[in-house]
């Protein structure tokens, strides 16, 4: 491991690991690649505009690809949001989908009952999610390990069930919204949300707030004793995570036009997002992005119906089991220069975690 002796300027707080020169060079590459990909993602969809079509340019993105890329962007938001509370703060909330549901239902209700414009409804949903996170976060974040994970799972299941039984929220039949037909709108909304999430993660990691969260993750008692207000920081991280997840939910609600308990409070959303962060690289900036893109692409291409979908789920299960055993730090960990995927790494990991 090259021991870095040269004076590092102010090392990017994001790379909370061995600040070797190689690692920082790789990180710069990651940033550049990300910028290029973003530029491409912004330009390509424009090819579907009527004016552009009239000019005879090829249709690069058809409806199917719009759907897949928008879903991927949605999961970048959800996974990135989970990463803030699970990856950075070390509190793996297994029921973060509750905010996806609350965001969706709040937007849906504001639009259908209060007939607010879509934009206001989205903002309203985000605010409600943050407020709810603050209320349930204070008691919930006093729990640790298994207990926090399952308690947050419990809150998700219970909330879904309660909303399903309340007529004001459309009861079991869910909520129908006036249709807005525009693939481009929802694509750019989700993409914007994804950029916002990655940007937020970057900001958090480069601020006192991020420093405090990682200190809490590493050792909460030590963090408290050096002056980190652990309760306030944990709740703030939970609210931020909830707000972003709620944003995804609110956009999804109008995009999907119809929401009910099974679509808005589907636990698979929570678990898939955790798997994405784990495979992509927990606690990193681009981990959730890579994980979401890879996994959602896999799910969508094999989603199919009938047997194929079932086999996909089995494949997902095998992938998850293998990832947990062989790949605990995730893909970005290797590109981030922290370690290379060698047999030695796998053997050492197994030795450390196995019996």
């Amino acid at each position: 491991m090259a021991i870095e002796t040269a004076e590092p300027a102010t090392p990017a707080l994001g790379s909370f690991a061995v600040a070797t020169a190689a690692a920082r060079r790789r990180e710069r590459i990651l940033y550049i690649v990300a910028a290029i990909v973003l530029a491409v993602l912004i330009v390509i969809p424009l090819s579907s505009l009527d004016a552009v079509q009239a000019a005879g340019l090829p249709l690069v993105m058809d409806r199917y690809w719009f759907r897949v890329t928008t879903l991927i962007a949605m999961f970048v938001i959800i996974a990135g949001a989970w990463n803030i509370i699970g990856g950075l703060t070390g509190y793996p909330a297994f029921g973060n989908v509750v905010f996806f549901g609350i965001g969706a239902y709040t937007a849906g209700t504001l639009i259908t009952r209060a007939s607010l414009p879509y934009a206001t409804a989205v903002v309203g949903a985000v605010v409600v999610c943050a407020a709810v996170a603050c209320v349930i976060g204070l008691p919930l974040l006093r729990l640790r390990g298994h207990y926090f994970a399952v308690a947050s799972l419990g809150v998700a299941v219970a909330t879904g069930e309660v909303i399903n039984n309340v007529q004001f929220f459309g009861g079991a039949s869910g909520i129908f919204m006036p249709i807005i037909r525009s693939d481009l709108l929802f694509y750019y909304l989700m993409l914007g949300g994804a950029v916002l999430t990655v940007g937020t993660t970057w900001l958090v990691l480069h601020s006192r707030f991020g420093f405090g969260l990682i200190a809490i993750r590493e050792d909460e008692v030590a963090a408290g004793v050096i002056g980190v207000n652990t309760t306030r920081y944990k709740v703030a991280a939970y609210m931020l995570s909830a707000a972003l997840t709620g944003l995804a939910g609110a956009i999804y609600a109008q995009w999907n036009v119809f929401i009910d308990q099974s679509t808005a409070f589907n636990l698979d959303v929570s678990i898939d997002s955790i798997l994405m962060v784990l495979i992509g690289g927990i606690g990193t900036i681009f981990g959730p992005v890579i994980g979401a893109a890879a996994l959602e692409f896999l799910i969508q291409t094999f989603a199919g119906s009938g047997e194929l979908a079932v086999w996909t789920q089995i494949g997902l299960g095998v992938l998850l089991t293998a990832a947990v055993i062989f790949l605990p730090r995730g893909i970005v960990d290797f590109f981030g220069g922290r370690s290379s995927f060698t047999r030695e790494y796998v053997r050492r990991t197994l030795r450390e975690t196995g019996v």
Partner: protein
Amino acid sequence: MAELIVLGLLLGGVYVAVGLGFSLVWGILNIVNLAYGALVMIAGYITWILSVRYGLDPFLSIPVNLVVMFAIGYAVQYVAINRIVRAPFLYTFLITFGLDLIVVNALLLLFKADFRSVNTFYSGASLAVGPLVVPYVRLWSLAVAMALAAVMWLILNRTRTGDAIQAVGADKDAARLVGISLRHVYALTFGIGAACAGVAGPLIVTYQAITPSAGGPYTLQAFVVVILGGLGRVSATVVGGMLFGLIEVLAQAVPGVGAGYTNAIAFAVLVAVLLLRPRGLLGRLA
């Protein structure tokens, strides 16, 4: 009121059966098995096949289930979970979720998604005690659950294997120093846990139809039972199961709250107990 209490105790019986295996694996191996409900479903389907194809009564299929489920549990732990048993809890959590995905979907492939149920000549029969109408099936389930708890207590406290399991739960290094192989005892413990699911499965299938993905609620219920009762002792799970049965039945009797709120009640209880007594009422929550 008396009827509600009886119903609660009967329901509690199933929860005890469901909770025992889950509590053992969590207490000794510190693994929260998200795939526990799926294991119960496997046992349910074994019972269903034996009943449909060979006409074997669900209660008589329990021995078969015990053996098959123990073998599955032992293998899963020995091959997969032992690899990451010392990793942070998030990974043991996720690996069991991976197993849940595999098992549920494998069952989907084999049995499709339609509901399966097992009815026997005595399914409908029930015992009338004054105003109380108690289905036989539920009575026997309670009896089997208590028998399972007794057997589990005997294994843990009166056998050399039980001593080894408890020793591993108390101090892993010290256990190795007296010659206990962790790999074997871990697999043994998970196997016994799965065998308990092998008892819960047949009990459930006698009064409820099952589908491959119907296991989820049982995992959550097992969790609530452990939180209510606490870890470390068989008696803790029995009390936890009974209490949970009572709470659920009584809560549903409250006007305005219907059967639709079963999971919501379960989790309201869970979160409340976690916040008030994270140690669980009786046992120590290691």
